[in-house]
Each structure stands twice: as C-alpha cells, then as structure tokens.
C-alpha cells in the first residue's frame, strides 16, 4: 500500500523497484521530465551533468533502454562508459557481479545495470557506493520503463487518475506489466487485464492492485474492453509459451491490434507498447492517431534525464 509519507529525497538513491518511489516522487520525476523534452530533442543544450560519468553495464541485450540512458546522459553534458557484451569484459573470466560493481563504482558516478538474474540490482546496490538504477533484472523489475509509461500516459491524457487502461497480451510473464499495474493503481487508474487463457496476470499482482484500491476487470476477450479503453497497453505474446504453433497463431491472431479493431475504440484511445513488437500491432496502425508507441519510446530519454539529474543532485 502506498505510504502517505511524502518524501522527496532523490540525491544518491538507488532505484531497484518502482516500490522504491512514492507517488509524489514519481510526479516530481515526471514534472522534471517535461522540462527535459526540448533538451532530449536537441533543441536546447544543457550542461547539467557536465563532468559526470555514467556506467552502463548491460549483461543482456537491449536497444531502447541502453541507447536512451546513454543519450540522456550525453544530452545533459555527461559521459558514458560501459559494455553491452559481457563476453568482452572480465565477466567472461568468471568475475562475480559484486566485483564488477565494485570496479564500476570506482570508475563512475552512477551505475545502470541490466542482468539476467532477479535480484541483481539489489545486490549491486549493496556493493556500490554510487547510486544504482535497475534497467531490468531477469523477469524482475524494470522501474524506468514504468516511469516512462506513466509519463507517456500523463502527457497524452493530462492525468492518470480515472483513466481506463487495458493491459493486453502475455500478462503472466511480461516483465513490464506487473510493476506498471501497481503504479497505475497507485495513481487511481481503472485497470483491465486482457490475456489469452493460461497467460493471465499473476494472482499476487492482482492482489497487490486490489490492496491499493483498484478492482481490475479480468478477461480473455479484447472486445470486453476496447470500447471503453483510454489506453490499450499491448505486450508481446511469445511463441515459446505455446505447445504448438497452430495454437500460438490462433491466440496471436485474436489479440492483434489492427485498424478493424480500432474502429470499435474511442477516437481518443491510444495504443502503447514497450517494444520490440512482432505481429501484435499491425504496421497499418502506425500511421493512425492511435499509435503512441514511438512517442513512448522517445519518452525514455527525458524521463531518464530527469531521474539521473535528480539522483545526481543536479536538480532538486
């Protein structure tokens, strides 16, 4: 349950889980991110993090997260060190994560970590004096994705409170949807969970959302939610979750977002996706006003700029 205690301290904090943040803190990050948009677009120049070094340690593949963190640091005048292929680092020689973190701690002012095991970012925070931001730990947390999703909804809709947000796809294994649901509930959104049978939202997440005070609509049918949705948050359904290809194709087909489906939606409804997408959103949707996913991907930059500026104490 969200604590009403208002704490606005950012300087030096680790961000491992979205639960490390209060609603006022998330709002503050979004407020600062709004001001960062012209800098993120290159329209304004900033030296806010001049002289600072970010270490990006990516043990697993990433395109958007790594590039947007690096772009965010450079747009604020800082520099970046790191790797995206652990085979080229001392990890290949069997070094523990703890030791690699100790080194990165000595060489940088802030560490961003993506790692294959759950709990890795918490461990890194234990071994690092400089702040650690979790950029994904296995099937665990990815808090900056949640922040940029919240920011995108707030930017597009004006507010999150009271909006109908339908999360669609593989809600069981999809990393982003668990923490996003809890954060959306904290902001007072109305939630629907739409998934194929067997890939429903885990009971624990449903329970957590209910404890916060939102009773989600749970369904296997997209038609149940499409007319009322303000945001349709689409996630990938992975082939490997199905025993046979025919079953996968059937399910993937019934959950595809295309222009035919969008005819049933409100004009103001927006489609989001953490990307990469495969077939779950038809490319013909890209040119409609409903497509918000590329804007969402861009928003990774101003949101990560805001977060780093606040954690480094460059912005209050």
């Amino acid at each position, binding site marked *: 349950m969200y604590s009403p205690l208002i704490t606005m301290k950012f300087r030096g904090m680790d961000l491992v*889980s979205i639960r490390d943040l209060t609603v006022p803190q998330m709002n503050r990050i979004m407020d600062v991110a709004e001001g960062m948009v012209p800098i993120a677009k290159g329209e304004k120049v900033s030296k806010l993090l001049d002289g600072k070094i970010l270490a990006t340690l990516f043990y697993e593949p990433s395109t958007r997260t790594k590039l947007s963190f690096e772009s965010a640091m450079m747009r604020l005048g800082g520099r970046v060190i790191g790797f995206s292929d652990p085979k080229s680092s001392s990890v290949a020689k069997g070094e*523990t994560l703890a030791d690699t973190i100790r080194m990165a701690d000595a060489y940088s002012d802030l560490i961003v970590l993506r*790692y294959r*095991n*759950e*709990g890795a970012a*918490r*461990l890194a925070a234990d071994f690092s004096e400089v702040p650690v931001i979790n950029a994904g*730990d296995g099937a*665990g947390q990815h808090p900056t994705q949640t922040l940029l999703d919240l920011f995108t909804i707030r930017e597009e809709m004006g507010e999150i409170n009271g909006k109908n947000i339908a999360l669609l796809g593989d809600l069981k294994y999809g990393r982003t949807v668990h923490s996003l649901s809890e954060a959306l509930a904290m902001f007072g959104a109305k939630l629907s969970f739409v998934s194929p049978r067997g890939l429903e939202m885990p009971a624990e997440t449903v329970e957590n959302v209910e404890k916060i005070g939102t009773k989600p609509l749970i369904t296997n049918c997209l038609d149940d939610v499409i007319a009322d949705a303000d945001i349709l948050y689409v996630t990938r359904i992975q082939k490997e979750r199905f025993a046979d290809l025919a079953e996968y194709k059937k399910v993937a087909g019934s959950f595809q977002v295309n222009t035919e489906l969008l005819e049933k939606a409100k004009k103001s409804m927006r489609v989001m996706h953490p990307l990469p997408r495969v077939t779950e959103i038809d490319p013909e949707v890209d040119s409609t006003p409903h497509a918000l996913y590329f804007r969402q991907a861009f928003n990774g930059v101003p949101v990560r700029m805001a977060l780093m500026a606040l954690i480094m104490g460059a912005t209050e």
Partner: protein
Amino acid sequence: MKELKVSPIKHGTVIDHIECGMALKVLKILGLTEEPPEDTTSVIIHVPGSKGCKDIVKLENKELKKKEVNQIALISPDATINIIRDSEVVKKYRVELPDTVIGIVKCGNPNCITNFHEPVEPKFIVESRSPVVLRCAYCNRKLEDVTANLL
C-alpha cells in the same frame, strides 16, 4: 512414577514443543550439526504429548540466547525454550521469528542472484509470522517451501 527415556538435564537448554520430526532440522539451524558441542545433546523424536506428537532437544551446559533460537520459529513456530540451572527452569519463552532471516534458507527462485556464486547470504523479509511468509530481499519472490530450502 513415569519412566523418562532421557534423563533431565541439570544445566542447559531444553527446546520443547518442536514440531514432530523437525528436531534434526532445528539442530541444523542452530549450527549444532557442524561443530558439535563438547557436552551431550539429546534429541528425542516423536514424543507423544497432549497436543499430539512433538520433538524435544536438550543441550547440556549450554544456555542459548533468545536471538540464537528465534530462527527456529521458521520451522517450528510453537517451540518453547527452557533455560535450566541447578535442575530448575529459570527462564521459559516461546520462539519468535525476527523481522529478517539471513543465511538460514535459500531462495526458492532458481534464477535469484543469491543462488549464484555471489558473496551474499540469502536474506528474507518476514511478511507474516502465522503462517510464516518470507519474501526474498533480493528478487522479491515469496518463498513457497521453507523446509525444502533450508541451507
């Protein structure tokens, strides 16, 4: 007079009301299987009692501190500790699970960082004492089966 299978101790600690069949695990949690104490440890398993079967452990000439024994509440929440001096019970208390459990159980999530070769001890936050609910402080997963994951 009822004949006792194991004679009473003069000085030491009696851990009573251990859940049936858990006595050896209690010894393991207390670290008594790695470095046996100099004095006798008696383990009595499957003792019929008023509330059904129980186990008892008697440690001669060793007084366990409350903090040391509290960890056994993980597997035996109803256990009681009796401190014996000169054949008299001088202190008696129930075990009480602390707020965090460190280095006693491993995380049940095989992909948790604490199950790899990293220099950390598994750490759990105690979310509930009855029933016992532990959450990994690293990967944030609930531990489903405490007994199966004892280190």
